[in-house]
């Protein structure tokens, strides 16, 4: 069923470089990358009921592997991409096996600890990661010889990858497996009694989410042509989580909206506010305290509340 508004939106997105300046096209690329991260994280948070503060580590790890393979080993972009995806998915397999021994807050703490360890490694294993200097000198991949150095070119590739990601994640979430995932989130004991392997279901989701985070990581490193340990920081994971929560983890599209909001906020606020982390912290507080279910459902709730009071 093709809905007309979606078709228009898609057309508008595709035609973006025709009517928007380079700054906005680049911003759109950033938003799309953040959206992929948010959607993949939401598989864990919204659908799986597993809040992770370590998702950025998959994004960053893929970026580092790609950067290292292309700049240090001189590997081709294709080989580096596939290797980065494989390595990150493997990392997610291992992380998942350990972290999913726990649930709830313990799981959160383990993902946080894991991600900090990876961040610490990125900073200190300077012989490999070049520490605080980061890895630079990356050239954007050029599929089939087409250069993606222009803002528009990169944007179109990102748009294409994003659409594939969205469709894949949406299909996963809406599938029979997705239904079992939600069941595990809501009543794990009941699901076990019905014959479901709870740990396996959660682990598969964790790995799948990690895979798409890796895809976002590849786009990220190609966009920036640079990777720095700060991309693996808790702040980055927190930003991603904030995007999911701000948009509303209960829906498919919510995280996309939330990620867009956070990305735009970050870009614009850097002109006025020096301390992004502090602003991030305040936004966290505001959202969790005022509209915990997400901005859109929250505003609906608040306006209904005020509307009733006026009467």
């Amino acid at each position, binding site marked *: 069923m093709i809905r007309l508004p979606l078709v228009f939106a898609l057309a508008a997105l595709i035609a973006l470089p025709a009517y928007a300046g380079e700054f906005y096209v680049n911003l759109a690329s950033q938003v799309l990358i953040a959206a992929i991260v948010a959607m993949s994280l939401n598989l864990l948070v919204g659908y799986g009921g597993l*809040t992770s*503060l370590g998702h950025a580590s998959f994004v960053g790890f893929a970026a580092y592997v790609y950067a290292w393979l292309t700049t240090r080993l001189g590997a081709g972009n294709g080989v580096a991409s596939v290797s980065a995806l494989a390595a990150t998915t493997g990392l997610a397999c291992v992380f998942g096996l*350990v972290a999913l*021994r*726990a649930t*709830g*807050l*313990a799981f*959160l*703490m*383990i993902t*946080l*600890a*894991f991600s*900090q*360890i990876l961040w*610490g*490694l990125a900073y*200190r*294993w*300077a*012989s*490999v990661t070049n520490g605080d200097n980061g890895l630079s000198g990356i050239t954007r991949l050029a599929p089939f010889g087409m250069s993606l150095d222009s803002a528009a070119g990169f944007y179109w590739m990102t748009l294409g990858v994003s659409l594939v990601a969205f469709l894949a994640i949406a299909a996963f979430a809406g599938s029979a497996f997705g239904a079992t995932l939600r069941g595990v989130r809501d009543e794990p004991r009941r699901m076990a009694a019905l014959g479901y392997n709870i740990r396996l279901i959660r682990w598969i989701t964790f790995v799948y989410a990690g895979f798409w985070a890796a895809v976002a990581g590849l786009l990220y490193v190609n966009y920036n042509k640079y990777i720095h340990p700060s991309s693996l*920081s*808790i*702040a980055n994971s*927190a930003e991603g*989580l*904030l995007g999911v*929560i701000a948009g509303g983890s209960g829906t498919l599209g919510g995280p996309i909206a939330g990620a867009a909001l956070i990305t735009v906020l970050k870009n614009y606020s850097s002109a006025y506010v020096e*301390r992004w*982390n*502090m602003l*991030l*912290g*305040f*936004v*966290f*507080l505001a959202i*969790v*305290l005022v509209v*915990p279910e997400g901005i859109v459902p929250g505003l609906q709730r608040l306006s209904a509340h005020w509307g009733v009071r006026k009467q």
Partner: protein
Amino acid sequence: MQFWIIQILNSLALGGLLFLLSSGFSLIFGLQRIANLTHGAFFMLGAYIGASLLREHIPGIDFWLAALIAGLLVALLGGLLERLVLRRLAGNPLGQVLVTLGVAFIISDACLMIWGGDPIPVPTPQAIARPLIVGKLAFPTYRLVVVGIAFAVAAGLYVLLEKTRLGAMIRAGVDDMQIARAVGIRVSVLFTCVFCLGAGIAGAAGVLGGPIFSAYPGLDADMLPLALIVVILGGVGSLVGAFIGSFVIGAIYTFGSTLFPDVAYFILFLPMIVVIAYRPEGLFGRSRA
């Protein structure tokens, strides 16, 4: 030999500081089920407060008083956080965690704004600045003192928990919140007390760690994961677990950093993985059946 003495004392001192940090975290989590991600920031804030107090050379304020003042101020901040913010999110553990994370960001950027980006050194207290010479070996006195303080605090917390009414109430609350309420324990006051205690200890610990680490931006991000690993390893809510875990992690981190500097951080991974693989509730944690 001298090298090993230094390393051992370094690791013991780190273990002691980690215990001070993680004991508060463990108590708060055990009692209120809040994973207080602000804890690292409390430590850092304490360090900065202590460092700037000492920098001014205010007559009468020596190292120990500075630590006490820092502890009290951070405890106050913790109390405000608990009462004004976390209280509203009762029953929403995820929200509480996210909020503590947000506050951690705010505090860490505020410290950057107030004290700038350069590390502020904290001078070792005069009286114990000189090493203890035994025979041909020199023992860094301050580190010995830190270990001593950690042991003293551990003993104090033990006495508090096991021998006092307040401690009994805390243990009751950790065991079963509903029943504790039902027998009349003022849970609300208890929560604030424990949160303040945990925060205060972390803040004072920040000053105590000053001569070793100084106060620098990012201290919170360095300490928090270590505390988390200690708590995960030792078992949440268990003081014994926090004690043992702290010294284990202190040792691994110190010796790891010296012997395998590049991947020391990674080595910390391993005991945590091993423990979680076999006992997800930590070495001394209670399994939540």
